[in-house]
C-alpha cells in the first residue's frame, strides 16, 4: 500500500518541526527517513501513523485521505525506539494483544490467535521465549517482539521510529540485516526513521534526507551518497573535507594553494565551497609540486583495510584538520613521517555556493572535518 503526504506542516510553539513536506512512498518499498536529531523525521512518522496531527496538509494511505482517521483505524504497525512492550504480559500475550482487542465480530478464535502468534514468533525467531516477560529479554529480542506484535494485526504499512537506536552497535548491525531480509520476505510498505546514515544507506530502498523540517534530497542510497544535492547532504553522509575558496582559471584558490576544479558553473572570482571525501584525496610528497593544498602530517592510522592520515593545514589564517583515506600499500610507498609537509590533491571535488540560505544544522567552518555521524570533530 502506498503512502503519500502532501504539504504537511507542523509547529511546536515557535519551533517549526515540519515545513511543507510533500513525499511519496510507493508500495512495497522500505524507505529510510534520515536526518540529524530535531530535523522533524520522527514528527513526520508520527503524523503518518496518526499519533500526532499536522497543522496543515494531508496524509493519503492507499490514495485514501486518512488525515483525520484515528490511529486505531489507520491499520499501521508502529515500532517504538524503546519497544513499548506491555511489561505485565508475556511475550505471547504481547503479540496476541492486537488480535484480542478486535471487535467481537472480527476477533479470531483463541486457537487461531495461538497459531498466528506462533507463526509470528517463528518469523522473528523467538518462539522459544513465548512464556517469558519482556524484562527477561535482551534489547534486540524486545525489539523483535515489538515488531512481531505490530505485524500481528496485518498492518497495511509498517512505521519504525529509530528501531535500533537503543541497541549496541553489534546487535544493531545484526538487526539491520535481519530487517532487510524480513522486508524482502513480506514486502510491506515500510518507513523507518534513523539518524544513523550508515543504517539508512544499508537498509533502505530509498533514502529521504531531512534537515530543519525540510526534505533535502530523495534518492537511492548510492545516488544520494554519490550525488549529494546540497552541502548538508554531502557532510551528513560520511566524512568530508571542506575547502573554502575563490574560483579562478579553473582552479579553486584556497589560501596560498589552488585546486584544479575543471569546468564548473561558477563565475570567475565567485566564492565556493569544495567538498572532497577522504578517499578522494591523494597525498603528494614531491616538493616541486605547485598545485594542491599544503598540509602537515599529524598522524598515520594504519590499521584496518585502509589507512587514514590526519593532516593539519592553514587556510585563511586558521588551522584545519584534513583526513585522507589511502590504501595501505600507498601509505607504505609514501613513507610519511609525522610533521612532514606534503600537498593534498583531490581526485574529485564538488563545488557548492557558500550557503544560499542560513547554514545547515551546524554552520560548517571552512575546512572542518565532518565525522561519520555528521557531527563536527
Amino acid at each position: 500500500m502506498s503512502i503519500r503526504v502532501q504539504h504537511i506542516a507542523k509547529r511546536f510553539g515557535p519551533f517549526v518541526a515540519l515545513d511543507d513536506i510533500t513525499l511519496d512512498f510507493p508500495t512495497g518499498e522500505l524507505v529510510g527517513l534520515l536526518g540529524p536529531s530535531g530535523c522533524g523525521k520522527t514528527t513526520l512518522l508520527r503524523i503518518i501513523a496518526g499519533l500526532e496531527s499536522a497543522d496543515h496538509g494531508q496524509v493519503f494511505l492507499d490514495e485514501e485521505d486518512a488525515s483525520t482517521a484515528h490511529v486505531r483505524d489507520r491499520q499501521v504497525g508502529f515500532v517504538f525506539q524503546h519497544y513499548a512492550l506491555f511489561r505485565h504480559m508475556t511475550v505471547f500475550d504481547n503479540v496476541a494483544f492486537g488480535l484480542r482487542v478486535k471487535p467481537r465480530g472480527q476477533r479470531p478464535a483463541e486457537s487461531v490467535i495461538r497459531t498466528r502468534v506462533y507463526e509470528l514468533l517463528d518469523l522473528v525467531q523467538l518462539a522459544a521465549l513465548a512464556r517469558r516477560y519482556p524484562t527477561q529479554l535482551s534489547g534486540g529480542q524486545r525489539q523483535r517482539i515489538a515488531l512481531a506484535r505490530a505485524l500481528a494485526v496485518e498492518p497495511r504499512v509498517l512505521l519504525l521510529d529509530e528501531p535500533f537506536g537503543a541497541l549496541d552497535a553489534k546487535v544493531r548491525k545484526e538487526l539491520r540485516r535481519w530487517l532487510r531480509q524480513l522486508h524482502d520476505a513480506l514486502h510491506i510498505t515500510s518507513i523507518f526513521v534513523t539518524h544513523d546514515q550508515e543504517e539508512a544507506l544499508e537498509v533502505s530502498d530509498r533514502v529521504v534526507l531531512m534537515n530543519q523540517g525540510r526534505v533535502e534530497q530523495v534518492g537511492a542510497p548510492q545516488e544520494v551518497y554519490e550525488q549529494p544535492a546540497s552541502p548538508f547532504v554531502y557532510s551528513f553522509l560520511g566524512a568530508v573535507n571542506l575547502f573554502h575558496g575563490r574560483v579562478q582559471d579553473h582552479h579553486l584558490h584556497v589560501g596560498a594553494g589552488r585546486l584544479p576544479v575543471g569546468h564548473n558553473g561558477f563565475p570567475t572570482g565567485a566564492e565556493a565551497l569544495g567538498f572532497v571525501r577522504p578517499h578522494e584525496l591523494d597525498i603528494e610528497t614531491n616538493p616541486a609540486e605547485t598545485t594542491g593544498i599544503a598540509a602537515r602530517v599529524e598522524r598515520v592510522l594504519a590499521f584496518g583495510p585502509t589507512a587514514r592520515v590526519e593532516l593539519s593545514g592553514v587556510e585563511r589564517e586558521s588551522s584545519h584538520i584534513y583526513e585522507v583515506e589511502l590504501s595501505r600499500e600507498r601509505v607504505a610507498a609514501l613513507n610519511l613521517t609525522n610533521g612532514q609537509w606534503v600537498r593534498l590533491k583531490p581526485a574529485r571535488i564538488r563545488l557548492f555556493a557558500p550557503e544560499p540560505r542560513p547554514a545547515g544544522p551546524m554552520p560548517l567552518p571552512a575546512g572542518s572535518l565532518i565525522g561519520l555521524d555528521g557531527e563536527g570533530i
Partner: protein
Amino acid sequence: MRAGKPHRVLPGFPLALGYTLVYLALIVLIPLSAVFLKSASLNWEQFWAVISAPRVLASYRVSFGLSLLAAAINAVFGLIFAWVLVRYHFPGKRIVDALVDLPFALPTAGAGIALTAIYAGNGWLGQWLEPLGLKVAFTPLGILVALIFIGLPFVVRTVQPVLEDLDTELEEAAASLGADRWQTFRHVLLPVLLPALLTGFALAFARAVGEYGSVIFIAGNVPLVSEITPLLIITKLEQYDYIGATAIAVVMLIVSFILLFLINGLQFWANRSRARS
C-alpha cells in the same frame, strides 16, 4: 573474609533490623498489647456482651461499611485526579497539586466543622441539597463525605508517581494495535496501576476507620444510625468504663488487621501478576 559469608555493600544489617524491631515494639506493639491486656480483665461473657451490644454492632456497620465505601470512591476519583495532574498541563496545576495534601495537614476537627457548616441545612451547599431531599449533615451520608475528604490524598499520592513513570508510548502502542480507550485502560494501564491503587485504597481505608475529629461534628451521632465506633470508645472513656472501651478497641484492631491483611494479599497478587521477573 570468611568463605560463605555474603558480602553486603551496605553494612549494618543486624543493627538496622534490631533497631527496627525495637522501634516497632516501643511505638506500636507495646501500646497495642496493653489494649489486649486491659480487655482481658473481662471474662468471655462480659467481653461478648460489651462488643455485641446493638448500639456497638450498629457502629461497626457504620464505621467499616462507610470506610470501605469512602476508600472505594477515593480509589476511583483519586485515580482520575492523579491522571489529570500527571497527564495534562493547565494553569494553576501546581496549586491544585498542593491542595491535594490539605486534608493531611488540616486539623481534623477543623475539617469537620467546615464540612458541617457547608452541608448543614442553612449552609452553602446544604441549603440547595436539602430541598432536594438530600440531607448530608447529621446523617451517615455526612460521615461518608468526611471520610472521602480525609482519604483523598492517599490514593492520589500513591498512584501519581507510578503514573508519572508510565510511558505514553504504551497507550500509543495499544491504540496503533487497534485497542479502544477502554481496552487500553483495562488491559494496559490498570494492571500496572493496580498495586499502587490498592496501596492507596488500603491507606485511605485505614485512615477512615480510625478517623474521629472530622466525623463527630457532621455525623450527628444518632445511636444506631450515625455513631462511629471510635465515638463509642470515647463515650465509654468519658463514663470511666476503661475496660469496655478497650474491648471495643480490640474488636476494631482485629477487624482492621484482617481487612488490611486481605488488601495486602490482593496487592501481592497484583504485583505478582504484573512482573514475574
